């Protein structure tokens, strides 16, 4: 069998998958735009004229941004520690991806046990008399962000780790032997070289956070849902497909508006770095 044929055979399944995906996407956008065969923006007008939907969109983007920020804050040092770990790195890697073996519902529900009004923290606090009434640790943005960071952190760590592993330790040592203090070495050597991984991590976490359904459903407040959860409910409870499709399209466009520039930046950086020669 000729090589090209073999390759195209191998590509067939992924091609099929892509075709179905693209078809779905087109149908989705189409169903939100075309009403009775004509182009119609009713659904979008309906969405943007309702202040609660606009607020929901804002909250979704804000929570996604916060989640990304905290994942980066925790993920970078963790990835650095793992990349420079002299012992058995595989054990650390296993610990990082271990949560993926547990269903996201279970993981999010775990937080209810810890953060809930009668959960672990409030139990201890009220029992010891530190507080009189349970603190509101969940059913609000705090709970959602905490839960999302927990779920999405491994993606950030893996994305950054994969780049840090390519950066030889001697580059940091070179910086130090040239008088670069740790902060200077980080800013001028490590961070620029790790940037492609950081941007990949930001993209992944931000996208997944904007589309999150389960975590906001379990840990979020009743009144202030996120867009993903709302879409889920429009479909599953109200069967309002066109409206769900319009919401999904809005979500897609706003997410892309953030992610595309980041992707372009990452491309540019990677090209520049690989141009710089062997690391």
């Amino acid at each position: 069998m000729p090589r090209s044929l073999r390759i195209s055979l191998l590509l067939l399944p992924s091609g099929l998958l892509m075709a179905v995906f693209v078809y779905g996407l087109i149908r989705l956008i189409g169903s939100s735009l075309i009403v009775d065969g004509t182009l119609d923006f009713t659904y979008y007008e309906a969405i943007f004229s309702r202040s609660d939907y606009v607020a929901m969109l804002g909250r979704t983007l804000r929570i996604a941004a916060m989640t990304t920020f905290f994942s980066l804050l925790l993920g970078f040092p963790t990835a650095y520690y793992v990349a420079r770990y002299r012992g058995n790195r595989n054990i650390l890697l296993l610990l990082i991806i271990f949560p993926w073996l547990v269903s996201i519902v279970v993981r999010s529900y775990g937080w209810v046990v810890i953060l809930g009004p009668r959960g672990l923290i409030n139990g201890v606090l009220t029992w010891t008399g530190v507080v009189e009434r349970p603190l509101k640790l969940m059913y609000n943005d705090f709970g959602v962000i905490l839960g999302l960071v927990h779920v999405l952190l491994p993606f950030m760590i893996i994305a950054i780790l994969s780049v840090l592993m390519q950066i030889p330790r001697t580059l940091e040592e070179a910086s130090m032997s040239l008088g670069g203090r740790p902060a200077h070495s980080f800013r001028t050597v490590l961070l620029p070289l790790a940037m492609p991984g950081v941007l990949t991590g930001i993209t992944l976490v931000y996208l997944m956070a904007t589309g999150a359904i389960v975590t906001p459903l379990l840990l979020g407040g009743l009144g202030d849902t996120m867009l993903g959860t709302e879409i889920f409910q429009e479909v599953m409870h109200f069967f309002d497909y066109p409206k769900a499709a319009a919401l999904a399209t809005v979500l897609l466009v706003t997410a892309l508006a953030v992610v595309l520039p980041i992707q372009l930046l990452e491309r540019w950086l990677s090209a520049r770095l690989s141009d710089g020669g062997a690391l």
Partner: protein
Amino acid sequence: MPLTSSSDQPILQIDSVTKSFDGTIAVNDVTLDVVEGEFVTLLGPSGCGKSTLLRMLAGFETPTSGRILMRGRDMSRLPAYDRDIGLVFQNLALFPHLNVYDNVAFGLRARKRTEGLDSKVRDVLSLVGLDGFEKRRTGQISGGQRQRVALARSLVTSPDVLLLDEPLSALDLKLRRQLQVELKRIQRETGITFIFVTHDQEEALSMSDRIAVMQAGQVEQFSTAVETYHHPRTRFVAQFVGETNLLEGQVTAKSGGDVTLRVVGVDQPMTLPAPADLSANTGDTVAISIRPEHMRVGPSECPALTGTVVSHSFSGATVTYALDSAAGPMLAQTPFQTGQGHPFAPGHQVRLSWPIANVTVIPA
């Protein structure tokens, strides 16, 4: 250049430094004094602890015991960025995201010495022969040029001491010879103290003021290049630095400063001045080292050994014989004049002899 006169205050003192990594000893009780402006080479086989010693000097490892003093000040625990020591890495470690100019300027910026930065960077680039390469990326230049960038990068801050970890080992022979000469020139012009690491004895001999020969974490001998070659003090040094013939001997008499030896296979006893540190007494076994170029092939009155030619290789001015003898296999490199006919053929029996002055006694 002054080498080891006692009035010179050493710029760097390595004082009984030991480094072990979870039980395995990489550097074992090393003591060395380096004088300002000197070109010192650490020479030894791979794995003998050269890089570990350099890394302790640079500040990337802390000694398990012992001290490192710079101009009399203990800096064993000082972080790398607070030492005035440059390091050229074995893998160069150029910053891939910076161009040649920014790589070289890195140290000045990190130390906030940006006054006159541009002219300093250009001066050092021209010192290493890289004018016009400022804007090149490090991936767009040749191996030898990358080597020069690494050198320029650590020279620009004028460190007190520059450490170089096998900087030439990845280059081909021709480029290597060329850079050896240039490194020497740069060292002379800048006056910076160099500590150079290599496992190549020829490189060490041709470049160094002094050589520290290392084996298994220890310094076996620290002496000038000439001394190291002509008066090896241990068997290892004799064999590692240059080629040599090692013969087994027995001390038959010791009187005054002289020692008389009886050497296996040699027909007469030899009497020669004993090295000061020879502790062997009458009846003890010692080794003697004779370089191949000091071996004479042919009739002689000196103490001599009978050998059989195994093979010979003719290289214009000299012939090198491999021989078999009662004292084991021998090498002899003799001058060869035109009109001398042909070298001795394999199977030929010859007499091997040597001037007493070229014999080195080594404790067994």
